[in-house]
């Protein structure tokens, strides 16, 4: 029976890569060490030869894939529409960039590229023949604040209805299933100057589904400072899409970004709704990758050492349990 596969976006190890304590091979090895098998990469982050990957580099790349028993999955593309200060790139130029990224993905052995919601849909549509030509799918990342269930998706659904799902589909980012204010973000807000008492008040109000306008007045009376209001704003933007919405997208989910901010030592995630999401993915027969995207480093790095390997491993323990892997 087809089952969900475990992978990692090397984006997760960006802190260590940036600080030069992990090289590309180390990142790949870290994926393998957890028994995960899918490797997602942002070529512009970890391939300095981008966009012209040399045969020498590719030989090393595929050598690592073999050595560590992993395989390439997704290559994340950006479509640099603001390449020049004096103008936005034309559609034609964006199609060229899309082809460039499809080629890079093909060279890396990836089956899909991630495109951003800033790429005009007409550019995606014009790129479909190029996707076919290079044998690489185009996956639109659906990332907070975009809502998987809203009418925002209608034009894309129309594209799917007209052109099918062989080359175009979606890559939902699990950041859209956020349950509650993140503890590490709250702690950071306090370190940045918010009042612990007010942060706690806001969090309690959020849990109680209180009217945030009223909360705003309350904390003003409590003497809230700019950081306190920033925290309230952050909580107000928390997006919890109902995971059942994934059923609507059954059939065109190419890949999943398993975003997370903080995995607890008991292998649970307080913030993101994986306990519900993964069963829904199983139910709809999703047999692609859950590709970890650890993003907590940005929040804790002012005060704590970042251990991306540990964080990702904890998430994979949770996935093993939820997927039912032995």
């Amino acid at each position, binding site marked *: 029976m087809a089952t969900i596969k475990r992978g990692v976006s090397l984006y997760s190890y960006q802190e260590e890569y940036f600080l030069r304590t992990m090289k590309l091979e180390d990142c790949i090895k870290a994926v393998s060490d957890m028994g995960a098998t899918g490797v997602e990469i942002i070529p512009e982050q970890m391939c300095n030869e981008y966009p012209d990957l040399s045969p020498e580099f590719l030989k090393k790349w595929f050598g690592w894939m073999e050595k560590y028993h992993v395989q390439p999955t997704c290559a994340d593309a950006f479509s640099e529409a603001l*390449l*020049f200060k004096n103008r936005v790139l034309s559609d034609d130029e964006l199609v060229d960039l899309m082809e460039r990224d499809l080629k890079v993905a093909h060279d890396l052995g990836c089956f899909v590229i991630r495109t951003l919601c800033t790429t005009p849909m007409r550019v995606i549509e014009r790129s479909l023949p190029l996707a076919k030509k290079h044998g690489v799918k185009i996956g639109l990342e659906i990332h907070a604040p975009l809502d998987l269930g809203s009418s925002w998706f209608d034009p894309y659904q129309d594209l799917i209805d007209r052109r099918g799902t062989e080359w175009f589909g979606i890559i939902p980012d699990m950041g859209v299933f956020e349950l509650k204010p993140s503890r590490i973000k709250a702690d950071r807000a306090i370190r940045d100057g918010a009042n612990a008492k007010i942060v706690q008040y806001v969090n309690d109000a959020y849990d109680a589904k209180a009217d945030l306008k009223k909360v705003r007045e309350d904390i003003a009376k409590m003497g809230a400072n700019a950081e306190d209001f920033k925290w309230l704003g952050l909580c107000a933007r928390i997006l919890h899409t109902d995971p059942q919405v994934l059923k609507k997208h059954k059939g065109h989910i190419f890949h999943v970004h398993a975003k997370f901010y903080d995995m607890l030592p008991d292998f649970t995630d307080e913030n993101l709704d994986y306990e519900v999401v993964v069963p829904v993915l199983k139910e709809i027969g999703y047999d692609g990758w859950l590709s970890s995207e650890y993003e907590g480093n940005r929040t804790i790095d002012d005060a704590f050492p970042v251990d991306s390997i540990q964080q990702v491993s904890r998430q994979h323990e949770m996935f093993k349990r939820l997927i039912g892997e032995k």
Partner: protein
Amino acid sequence: MFDKYIVCPYGLRNVIDEHGSIEGFELKIRIPYYRGVPLSVVDSLKITIGAETFTNESIRFTVASGSFTMSEMSTVATRRWNFDEDATLKVTRPGGLVYFDQRVEVLIAIRAPYGIFTGHDVKVLSLEPDKYLAVAAK
């Protein structure tokens, strides 16, 4: 993001030109973004040392793929500043820096496809030995 790493803790030094005069100083910076970028999207740079501020006009930006003034960079779309790479900023300032310890502040803006990414960092650095530019071959 990565703001606290923008100003490298090493690499601040005066630069001596071919005629032996101090033409300015240089420092090294890291990218405040999670990937490398084409040089043309490095939108602006502002360096403050002590009470003096230096902007695009007086800054030369050098990475492995090339060396350009900030005004030239706006059209350099095929050369990149890599995610794991130090960039060297050479600032024209006849006489260079005088005090051994310098408060160095860098403000940088990068145009991502979804908007401007800014980065800000301040560090106190010590001047390293001067850099002597080689006399040109001919």
